């Protein structure tokens, strides 16, 4: 799974914390879309519908073998190909094989996070196949050799002046910072690519097993172009992105567009279930659906994490998360940013490796409240932190800090014994003395140092409440009762 930077989470987050422009861009998205979505959940979409949608998602996951079998049969009956990929490597190799078999020179892509997950671009480019992102935001990112920072607004971290200079240099147009002018320049450049490409790669928002279609949402029309005009269409789909029936599709589509952009519906919703049929004037001659495991099987098997597969990738958790709001998408340094990324990246790629992601979130619960399918991300973040603290065999997690675990064990022992606790308080009071100034601990040692680097810590009081009780309050009460 590709990463965009060599820097650590801490370094990237620190950089973002000082980036005022980034904050105002994210604030705009969070104020408009995040709050808009929350408003829709209170007004036109009932909690009952969200509960029903979650139930449908979980029922599909519990019967994923049957649902995927039905989807596959229907698509094959229409002349489409379905390939099951165990790993990211299997999936990208399959894409390359299809491209080579069809002598593809240029691939156009509709925005797909799964394609970033499997890292298909680099492989195709290494085989001299041009890969063009066609979503405007993704196209800008690609031109700038940058990385997307938001699921649905990939280039919110760039301003129109930056984009203007980029287009001046890369597209050879006169400098402009007028969004309609810039959009028109990209429309023209991309139209040529879209109409001359041999193969289109898309993701899949929701597949409908009953009817045998994948479905894709877009506002720009680039996804329709990429899946209609080239002679080959390859759709990449995480194995969980399927639902059983049209009735469920109705429900989940309404939640998806509202969660993603507080929209009633996106401009385009495309249903595709195979190649062009006889007599049809257009459409791809070949249709391939790649159904990808790449670690999802393990999430499915674990009752603690099966729920996370019910995610419909709307990105609403990014639009509400206070941590994402401060550090932006780049700090997550992963194909899936934000609260959902903080849960799935460790599960995809190693909990120890992505320890910072699940420890960086605040567990405030905003992501859970806004999630259209009620995903309990805070619960799963806690599960991950528990693994990091105590280790987990199933997920091959080593305890991060044995000293910390030991310290808490010691604390537990001290808290359970009056004598030990009293002793600890007394020694602590003596030991802290050299570090206290103006009545506060300002320079802690060991793990406390990280806290006191930014904030003061209150020292152990001269007298604990228990001690005061004995010397001050209890005698007074006694006096009262004597009167």
């Amino acid at each position: 799974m590709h990463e965009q930077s060599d820097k650590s989470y801490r370094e990237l987050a620190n950089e973002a914390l000082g980036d005022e422009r980034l904050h105002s861009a994210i604030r705009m998205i969070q104020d408009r879309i995040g709050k808009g979505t929350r408003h829709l959940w209170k007004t036109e979409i009932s909690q009952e519908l969200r509960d029903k949608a979650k139930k449908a998602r979980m029922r599909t996951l519990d019967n994923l073998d049957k649902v995927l079998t039905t989807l596959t049969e229907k698509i094959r009956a229409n002349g489409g190909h379905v390939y099951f990929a165990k790993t990211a490597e299997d999936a990208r190799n399959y894409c390359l094989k299809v491209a080579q078999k069809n002598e593809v020179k240029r691939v156009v892509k509709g925005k797909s996070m799964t394609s970033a997950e499997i890292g298909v671009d680099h492989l195709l480019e290494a085989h001299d196949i041009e890969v063009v992102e066609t979503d405007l935001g993704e196209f800008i990112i690609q031109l700038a050799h940058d990385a997307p920072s938001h699921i649905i607004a990939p280039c919110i971290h760039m301003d129109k002046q930056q984009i203007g200079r980029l287009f001046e240099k890369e597209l050879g147009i006169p400098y402009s910072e007028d969004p309609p002018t810039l959009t028109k320049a990209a429309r023209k450049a991309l139209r040529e690519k879209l109409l001359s490409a041999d193969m289109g790669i898309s993701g899949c928002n929701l597949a409908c097993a009953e009817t045998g279609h994948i479905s894709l949402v877009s506002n720009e029309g680039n996804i329709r172009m990429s899946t209609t005009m080239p002679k080959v269409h390859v759709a990449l789909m995480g194995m969980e992105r399927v639902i059983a029936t049209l009735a469920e599709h109705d429900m989940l589509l309404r939640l998806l567009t509202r969660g993603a952009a507080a929209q009633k519906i996106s401009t385009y919703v495309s249903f595709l279930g195979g190649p062009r049929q006889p007599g049809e004037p257009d459409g791809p001659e070949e249709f391939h659906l790649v159904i990808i495991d790449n670690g999802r099987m393990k999430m499915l098997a674990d009752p603690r994490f099966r729920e996370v597969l019910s995610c419909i990738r709307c990105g609403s958790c990014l639009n509400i998360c206070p941590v994402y709001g401060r550090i932006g998408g780049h700090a997550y340094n992963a194909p899936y940013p934000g609260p959902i990324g903080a849960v799935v990246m460790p599960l995809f790629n190693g909990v120890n490796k992505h320890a910072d992601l699940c420890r960086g979130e605040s567990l405030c619960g905003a992501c859970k409240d806004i999630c259209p399918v009620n995903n309990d991300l805070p619960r799963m973040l806690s599960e991950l932190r528990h693994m990091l603290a105590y280790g987990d065999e199933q997920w091959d997690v080593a305890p991060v800090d044995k000293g910390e675990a030991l310290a808490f064990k010691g604390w537990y022992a001290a808290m359970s014994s009056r004598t030990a606790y009293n002793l600890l308080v007394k020694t602590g009071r003596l030991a802290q003395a050299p570090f206290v100034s103006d009545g506060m601990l300002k320079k802690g040692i060991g793990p406390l140092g990280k806290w006191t680097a930014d904030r003061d810590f209150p020292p152990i009081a001269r007298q604990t409440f228990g001690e005061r009780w004995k010397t001050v309050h209890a005698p007074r009460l006694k006096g009262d009762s004597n009167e």
Partner: protein
Amino acid sequence: MNNAEQTFFTRLRDALGRNSSTRAVREPLFDSREPGELDALLARTNRTRKERLDLLATLKEFAAILNLRIHTASSTDGAGKTIAEIARTTDTEWGGEKRITMHDNPLLHGLNLEGHCKQDGIAVDISAIDPDKDELTEKLRLRHQAEAAYMGITGADWCAADCGAIAVMAGPGRGRATSLVPSVHVAVLTLDQLVADLPELYAQLENRASLPVSFNFISGPSKTADIEAHMVHGAHGPREMHLIVITE
């Protein structure tokens, strides 16, 4: 089923605990409606003319937000005149002569568009394959036709009034590019094709004997807000969309 696929499903059943469990799962997986729910949704669409006109009012209100332009015509011929007027006053985006590409659909043939456009020198081409000719050669011809057209005209199977979405089924004579590649998309439908919302529209889809391999919901012109969240119409698809509702 090849080996990789068999292994995939074996692992999947393991992950679901199916192989070890003797409990048979007998869930009505592909029947997610409550009893009578679909019939009730279908029955909702039996509307009086007055109720349909109310839906049209709802549609007009919401379409303004989408920048989707709604026109009403009292007859099919009148709709043809409206479209000819739009064609006359719209400039081509990429230069070249003014050509229209149109779905092969009985309602659209009734527009008499060719007649209405003749005086302005605008040609109307039909996006259908000639069954007597080689299909792939025809496909190429129709692709050039779509790329050369500045306006594409389609029918609509249904339109959901509360969100402005039309459903367009693909099929012979119903090219997907017609509503996508030209700069302007004009869709034509009759008042009885209006439904209230997406649940009603999905019920219509469910009620069809079969669905085509490709269909689209379209609600307004192509749009993007990727540059500083500034809304711009005409990203990749049509920059303008008109919906003509025939009320006769």
